[in-house]
């Protein structure tokens, strides 16, 4: 079932574009062309609200205040203002983040997607990433149900990457998190471990080298 997004935008052109882009990205949408004071009963069941702050009827901040009175649905604020007052006020009133006009359609979709992405469960005993299955407790890794033999350090590197899958992480941080200091684990050692990891895991698991940063374990969403 697609996630449902409520769009509150008074400009007909922009509203139509936003709605179309979000539908193309696979979301269900409801578009309100005017602001209105909200009560619990008025709000359709939505997963995210995209709220323009400069609305003619009800001021966007008032809607936000109403909304926060009865639910914690994520709110992404659209702001054309170039000063900080409204943004800061919106954040203080409980908006999750804001998007400044002008924005690209791709930027909008990326921000909505990031906001709707469920946070990965940390400290879970195991983690499933596409073909990859990591059992943290047993220190075992399976790729397409095939057990992959990893050294302790290789496992640590993979585990650290997996816990922040989809994010680029720096070499420095990986070294700090996964390598033992006493064994002289530097960034070159890390590169060697990653290289071996890639070979052992094969094509099913994608560990990207991120220029200027380090590595990223693809989480299959992007």
């Amino acid at each position: 079932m697609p996630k449902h997004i409520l769009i509150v935008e008074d400009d007909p052109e922009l509203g139509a574009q936003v709605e179309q882009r979000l539908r193309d990205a696979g979301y269900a949408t409801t578009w309100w062309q005017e602001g209105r004071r909200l009560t619990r009963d008025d709000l359709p069941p939505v997963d995210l609200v995209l709220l323009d702050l400069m609305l003619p009827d009800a001021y966007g901040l008032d809607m936000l205040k109403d909304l926060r009175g009865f639910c914690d649905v994520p709110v992404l604020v659209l702001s054309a203002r170039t000063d900080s007052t409204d943004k800061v006020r919106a954040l203080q009133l409980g908006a999750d983040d804001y998007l400044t006009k002008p924005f690209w359609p791709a930027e909008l979709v990326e921000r909505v997607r990031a906001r709707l992405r469920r946070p990965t469960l940390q400290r879970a005993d195991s983690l499933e990433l596409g073909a990859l299955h990591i059992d943290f407790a047993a220190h075992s890794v399976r790729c397409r149900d095939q057990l992959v033999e990893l050294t302790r350090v290789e496992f640590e590197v993979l585990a650290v990457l997996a816990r922040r899958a989809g994010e680029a992480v720096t070499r420095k941080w990986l070294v700090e998190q996964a390598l033992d200091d006493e064994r002289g684990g530097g960034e070159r050692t890390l590169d060697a471990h990653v290289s071996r990891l890639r070979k052992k895991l094969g094509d099913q698991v994608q560990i990207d080298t991120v220029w200027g940063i380090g590595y990223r374990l693809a989480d299959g969403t992007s």
Partner: protein
Amino acid sequence: MKLRLRVALATLGVMAPLIAGLSMLDVHAQQAAAELELIEMIQARTSLPGERERCEASPNVWQHGSAASLRPPRVFEGEHPRARFGGEAPASRFAGEAPPPRFAGAPPPGPAAVRGPHRQPAAFYAYDAALRSRQVDAPLLPEHRLPLATSSSLSRSSLWHPERVEVLVRTPWPGGACAFVLARGTTEPWLGALLPPTRIWALPVLMVLLAVLLAIGPVLRRIRQLTDAVQRSAAFDYAAGVEMHGNDEIAELARAFAGAASEVRRQLEAKDHRDRALRNFVADTTHDVAIPLTVLQGHLVTLQEAASKARVPDASVLGSAMDEAHYIGALLHNLSAAAQLDATDIRLQRNDVDLRALVTRVVSRHRPLAQQRDISLEAAMPDAELHAHADVTLLEQAVSNVVYNAVRYNTAGGHVAVLLEAEGTHEFRVRVLDDGPGVTADMLTRLRERGYRGTQARTRNVDGQGLGLHITQRVLDSHGMRLQLSSPAAGGLQVDITGERSNLAKPHAGS
């Protein structure tokens, strides 16, 4: 109310109660002296032998007695009373049977006989112990007015009737019809008076008034001069000062005016400066936005022409059109930031800023452009929250400019990396790395120069950087943050933004 009138009224206001007080004292003193005279008269008469019997037999005698005391009690005008009475023993004044001269003596000499009609002769009324009189015309004395137990006399004079004197005297003959005598007389201008009898004392009052009015003349003249000077100064937008010679308070006032005028001048100049800045801003904005918009329109027309001829549109034209649109967006935010920074009273709206959310926003803003240009744009965040105390719009624009420059001046297949890291225990660092063409050492030096920009930096592509980096520098300066540019050995450009992080990490700025 004019100052002169105000001063005259104030002078009179001070003098009037003074005169009134003096007059009252004068009346009181005259009455007291006259009463004393009356008492002395009664005492002298009561000391005469056989007088009691005479009085009790016919109290009328005491009013208009044998010697018919019809004379006014004060008849010795022109002669100093004290010299006359004080020089004689009282007994001699009332010698023998003869009534005292004031009652019944020889007719007074000279003009004393010719009195005004209000001058009544002294009159006496005898009363018994209960204050009843057998005399028909004796004034009624209420019973309760009998407090003569202790003193021998009681004044019944009133300030409301300054010339009339009444005194009730206890006689040495209690129990009879003449236990008390009420004496009624008039005051005399020469007796007991504090003020001179004629109104000559009013003269000093008039002189004081005149002196005050004269003294205020030069002050008023100087005030008028000052008024003129201030009006002249105001007529020329306070360009000329307000000058007054001298050391008095008026000159001080003139100096205060001069100070105020220079403050007004300063404010006017600041206002002019703001007006000019605003006009320039509008003009620059129009110019700056008009150019990329024209280019964008050109691209759109090219695409439209291609579409109308059913040709596949040129991807490079599409890309350029996107570039221009992106540039206009960035320009708008930079111009707005410039206006904020140019304001004479720059007020940062500093709040707690979630730096991870900020960098995420910046990167997602430029990613569509980077993708379109085939440039990889990646960001690395710390796994813990990182906050700073900053104006979120300005700081975001500062970081955005650096990232935009890195994307914009890179070439296809290039990379841009944005790294947000904690630096030590108190600072954060945003590092923007690229593998673009980089800058020459000379250019780097110039870019590092504070305030490097000049108006030409508004134009596009000055040294490949332009307005954006200048705005970044100014925003960081205003926040007490640092901008550091360096050329890494591997090429490209490395830009570091370092600043203090805030420890009050509030989880509201999203992430």
